[in-house]
């Protein structure tokens, strides 16, 4: 059950990133670029989640790396919203 949720989280995050970045290419809207980059970061974080909790043994803990990836995604979007939103 948990493994399926982790895989689905990663897949949906990748799908969001791809759709947003494709929309950005079409419309050149900067907001879509920042959102797309944010979801690309979230996709990385979710892939790491699966690698950490399912693939790697419990002795290796990627929690800090994962949360830093998530926080970077949020900060990238916030940066875009502060500088490009008008």
């Amino acid at each position: 059950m948990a493994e399926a949720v982790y895989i689905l989280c990663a897949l949906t995050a990748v799908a969001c990133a791809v759709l947003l970045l494709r929309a950005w290419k079409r419309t050149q809207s900067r907001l879509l670029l920042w959102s797309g980059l944010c979801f690309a970061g979230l996709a990385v974080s979710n892939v790491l989640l699966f690698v950490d909790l399912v693939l790697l043994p419990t002795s290796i803990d990627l929690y800090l790396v994962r949360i830093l990836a998530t926080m970077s995604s949020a900060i990238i979007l916030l940066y875009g919203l502060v500088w490009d939103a008008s």
Partner: protein
Amino acid sequence: MLLKSMLNGATAMAWLACALFFLRFWKQSRDRLFGFFSLTFVLLAGNAVAAALLDLDDERRHYIYVVRLFAFLLILYAIWDKNRAGRHGTG
């Protein structure tokens, strides 16, 4: 542990700020896409708060990721909804 809680807190704050920006866009443009985005980032903020409060070994932990999955599905629905509205508008 303190560092992890602090990072989770900072992440929650950043998501909430993003949610507020999108809430403003939604109020200005009445575009549903922004409303969905705002809701998603509120969910992600709640997610980060829950992650900070739960123990690392808590067996309920994977429910946090169910909420996260729901948030991502909401974004996918929002994009699909937006595309459909766009096609409807032009065609």
